[in-house]
């Protein structure tokens, strides 16, 4: 089936996508019980992670620590609070189902660009989850005793940069997930690719252990990968581990990857649209 090319993104049509964002944002806010359960889970998870690191910090003869224990705690709490923004496995199952069962045809009939729509939709879903979950975790973490809790940000500019990179990091994550959504057009059984991609993202983005804990040479390499531009940058800026010239470079790399991933996603999208076969009937 051939479809006419979707309209270009025009300033006035941006309103459509912000509308999609608002719609999915408010939809996501409805799941409060799920959020409460999620918060409890993440709280225990964060606590265990910190206790694990504490064991390493407490052991004598463990010489060089790449981050202070306080910074590590802050990193872990921030990671748990904003988990929904960065965890690649939190993908929108509806998008996969609609590609597989053919309902995507309805979406294609609309006078909108499907890439932009899904992009804003994914951003919204992640934001609403994070908004629901972050506050209680941040609050409790802020009141925990000194090295275990979350400290105030180093300075106002650092905090603003944290927010900025948080958003770009989210955008990079979503742009990467878009590639996986797009792959479903070609494979129709996205489960496998999805799982492989997830574990790769987890490892290289610093979700398993923070990137500074890797040996220096590997770490330098990991920071240049697109995965290093996800949660690694904002979390480390907040904990004060990343600053100065290194921070500037990291932000630059973030924007670069955002552009590359979006371009790649749009290209795959165009390719998929040209040869799409609709499933189901």
């Amino acid at each position, binding site marked *: 089936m051939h479809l006419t090319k979707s309209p270009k993104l025009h300033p006035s049509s941006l309103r459509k996508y912000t509308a999609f964002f608002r719609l999915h944002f408010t939809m996501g806010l409805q799941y409060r019980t*799920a959020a409460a*359960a*999620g918060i*409890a*889970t993440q709280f*225990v*998870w964060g606590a*265990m992670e910190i*206790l*694990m690191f*504490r*064991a*390493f910090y*407490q*052991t004598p*003869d*463990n010489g*060089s620590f*790449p981050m202070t224990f306080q910074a590590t705690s802050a990193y872990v709490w921030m990671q748990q609070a904003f988990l929904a923004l960065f965890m690649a496995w939190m993908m929108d199952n509806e998008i996969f189902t609609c590609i597989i069962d053919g309902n995507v045809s309805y979406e294609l009939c609309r006078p909108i660009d499907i890439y932009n729509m899904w992009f804003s939709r994914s951003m919204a879903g992640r934001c609403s989850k994070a908004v629901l979950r972050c506050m209680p975790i941040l609050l409790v973490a802020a009141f925990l005793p000194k090295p275990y809790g979350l400290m105030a940000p180093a300075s106002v500019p650092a905090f603003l940069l944290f927010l900025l990179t948080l958003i770009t990091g989210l955008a990079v994550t979503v742009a990467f997930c878009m590639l996986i959504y797009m792959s479903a057009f070609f*494979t129709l*059984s996205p*489960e*496998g*690719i*999805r*799982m*492989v991609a*997830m*574990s*790769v993202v*987890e*490892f290289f983005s610093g979700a*398993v*252990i923070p990137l500074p*804990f*890797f*040996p220096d040479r590997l770490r330098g390499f990991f920071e240049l990968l697109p995965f290093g531009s996800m949660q690694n940058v904002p979390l480390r800026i907040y904990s004060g581990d990343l600053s100065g010239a290194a921070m500037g470079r990291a932000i630059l790399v973030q924007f670069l990857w955002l552009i590359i991933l979006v371009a790649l996603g749009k290209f795959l999208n165009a390719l998929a649209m040209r040869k799409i076969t609709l499933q189901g009937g």
Partner: protein
Amino acid sequence: MRLYWKYFLIQLKSKMEYKTSFVLTCIGQFLISFNVFLSVYFMFQRFSSVQGFTYQEILLCFGITLMEFSLAESVARGFDLFSVLIRKGEFDRIMVRPRNEILQVLGSRMEFTRIGRMLQAVVMFIYGVSVSHVTWTFPKVLTVIFMLIGGTAVFSGIFLLFASVCFFTLERLEIFNIFTDGAREYGKYPVCIYGKRVLQICTFVIPYALIQYYPLTCLLDRGKWWYGLLPLAACLFLLPCFALWKCGVRHYTSCGS
């Protein structure tokens, strides 16, 4: 047992209809638990020991825990989707059949992609055992076997426990992941490194420490000899889980159509 085998074959055949996806999902499962190993590996690239445990000892602990979990998972993970059975009212069908309910629930769904994790567990187990500097004697081998039995019992008990809770909540609570996937994830290190409080909880509330930390000290010649028998005591954990299941079955009111 014959019935379980039959369920097993049916499920396997249905999954084999989608081969590529199956293989990729297996790889995915493998990689996800491989990440845990990598995290241990890279932490020890930087640090030499944690709370008196060396890299080799941690690997042994990780290998055994992962093996325990995978064994339990291959038996009892069917309980994971039990809430779906309840909500759709499919449990009614199970109740009217003249067979054991638990067996039927387990047979209703099997995840063969877990074979990826199982493979990982076997590799880690063999690797962990071979690099550990333990001099293997008969009691120690017996301890490892006890650990595997006890561990499978405890993790299966947890799966059963959470399925039973679904009778009352109708909803699978995300918080339970802490006790299954969380326990697997953090079981890579002996429970004691997380501090005294955690160790107490893991000894008296949910007996993770009985299948992991205590017998491990026995293997490493640091604990008392009877620590090696504790995994068998952990099997008792199945009793309250089973009681709750029975209670749930009795209170079950169908909610499907």
